[in-house]
């Protein structure tokens, strides 16, 4: 959620210094990457982050008294499940410099999609004894920062199902099909599904090796990636209700399509893109291939 002009004084930027999020594997910490390609629902995530808070500076800037209780907390959100919950909530001392280790064990079966990790300093209890412009309500955000990591990595941007196309309505020798359901405000993770034909062994192998692809897998994955991108862009251009200006909400199909078009065709209007595609669909397809950087290492 974006935060806009709160009706009270916030903590200054320099009053809180946070280190990188760390991911513990067998108790060994490593920096949390922006994508976890090997993750699935069975993998819980043990996370940690060190934060230093200059409590005196926070109180001085916000006008909060020494009696006002402060908490540093981590909140996680998962776009796949739509859920939001707290990890650690640490009470801060009345004064001085507080060195805090925030930790959380996130249950894998609650996660999916993009995992958002918010580190937030808040007023922990209702307080009436601060200055006029001090926060009052418990939970008032004094400082916050957000980090995101994509679970399931880049290759499976959305769920993949391997299925025999002979048992579907799709031609049995097709390689893959992108299912797009719901409206533009539907959660992306719940509405997109990449069907891969199990009869196409080279494809199935590439999908299974997405975390550690061989050269042949890279070629296959790049081809699928480019084609899926083309399908999604075309879907957006054909949907006359789709707009770059509407706020469809985080992690919805609408926002995913907006992000794709913004990335592939920065600064170009939908009207222009629709006209380009209508006038010369083959040239447009080639432009899209260029934008996707097909067969290039990412």
């Amino acid at each position, binding site marked *: *959620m974006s*935060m806009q002009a*709160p*009706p*009270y004084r916030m903590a200054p930027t320099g009053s809180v210094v946070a280190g990188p999020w760390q991911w513990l594997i067998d108790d060994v910490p490593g920096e949390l990457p922006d994508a976890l390609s090997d993750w*699935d*629902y*069975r993998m819980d995530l043990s996370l940690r982050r060190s934060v230093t808070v200059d409590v005196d500076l926070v109180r001085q800037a916000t006008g909060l008294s020494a009696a006002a209780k402060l*908490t540093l*907390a981590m*909140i996680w*959100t*998962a776009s*796949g*499940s*739509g*859920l*939001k*919950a*707290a990890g650690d*909530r640490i009470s801060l001392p009345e004064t001085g410099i507080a060195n805090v280790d925030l930790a959380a064990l996130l249950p*894998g*079966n*609650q*996660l*999916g999609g993009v995992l958002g990790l*918010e580190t*937030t300093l*808040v007023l*922990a*209890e*209702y307080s009436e004894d601060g200055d006029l412009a001090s926060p009052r*309500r*418990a*939970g*008032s*955000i004094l400082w*916050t920062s957000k980090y995101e990591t994509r679970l*399931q990595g880049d290759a499976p941007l959305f*769920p*993949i*199902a*391997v*299925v025999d196309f002979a*048992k*579907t*309505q799709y031609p049995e020798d097709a390689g893959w099909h992108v*299912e797009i*359901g*719901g*409206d533009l405000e*539907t*959660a992306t*993770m*719940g*509405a997109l*599904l990449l*069907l*891969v034909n199990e009869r196409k062994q080279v494809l199935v192998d590439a999908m299974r090796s997405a975390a550690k692809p061989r050269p042949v897998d890279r070629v296959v994955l790049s081809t699928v990636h480019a084609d899926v991108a083309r399908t999604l862009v075309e879907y957006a251009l054909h949907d006359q209700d789709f707009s770059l200006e509407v706020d469809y909400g*985080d992690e919805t199909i609408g926002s995913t399509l907006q992000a794709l078009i913004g990335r592939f065709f920065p600064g170009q209007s939908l009207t222009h893109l629709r006209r380009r595609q209508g006038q010369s669909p083959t040239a447009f397809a080639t432009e899209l291939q260029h934008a996707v950087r097909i067969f290039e290492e990412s």
Partner: protein
Amino acid sequence: MSVLFPRLLPRQAHKLYEEYKSLTIEELELRIALRHDSAVYAATGGDRVREKDLDQLRQAIVAVARVAGFPNRSTPATKNDFDRNVAELLHRTTGLAPAEAAARDIWVFLALVVLPDVSFWRFEKRTDERFLAKDLTRHVFGRLWWRAHLVHEPDSTDPYAALSILGEGAFDQIYARRRALGGSPQLVRSILHVWHEIDTGGLNETDLLKDFLKRLLRLGAFMSFETLHDEQLNAEVRRAAQDSLHAFDAEGRPRHALEYARD
């Protein structure tokens, strides 16, 4: 451990829905199945549900439906009972992970393949939103699992007690604001807790709840509810509810009286 349910893809689902919506309950009973050739499973994330378990789930839901009058017509009150009991049943027994339960196609499979007779009995109007899960908050079964998940208190002796606090319409008010409010089980439980304890004093409860939730949405722009422990969270949510009550009281007379006056 998570369980993966079969997913019925949109094209096939539309076809079945179009065919089924004009059938009688008896005719739908002949279409019941535990598998479908077009169904698919997500590639990762758990083990596929066994057909035996799907059958047991069907039997359990049918038993609840029979108490509520199935296959005959039932009253709004018995349908509410059905919803409450099936919400708990689905959440307690299916082993679905939230990320899997967010996939609309698994609910479509349950509604159109495993339980078409019960689904079409539950929603006699048979509008497609109840079966095709364009919006999970409206789906005959999907909305119930999520309702149970959001109110579930695992450490309580009655973990699903809060299911009884709000009716469908009122719960939809919260769930429709899912992005801002309804994704946080702790906040949903707090809203229900506070709503249960306040004295609405004859005010129009639907309007009051809307106003209460709007206040929380506005506060959510600069408050982080989830950073608070239950006691502090309940206090803040209660403060927002009291603000709504005071605002309604300040208008001089209950909303329902105003509505009658307009009629």
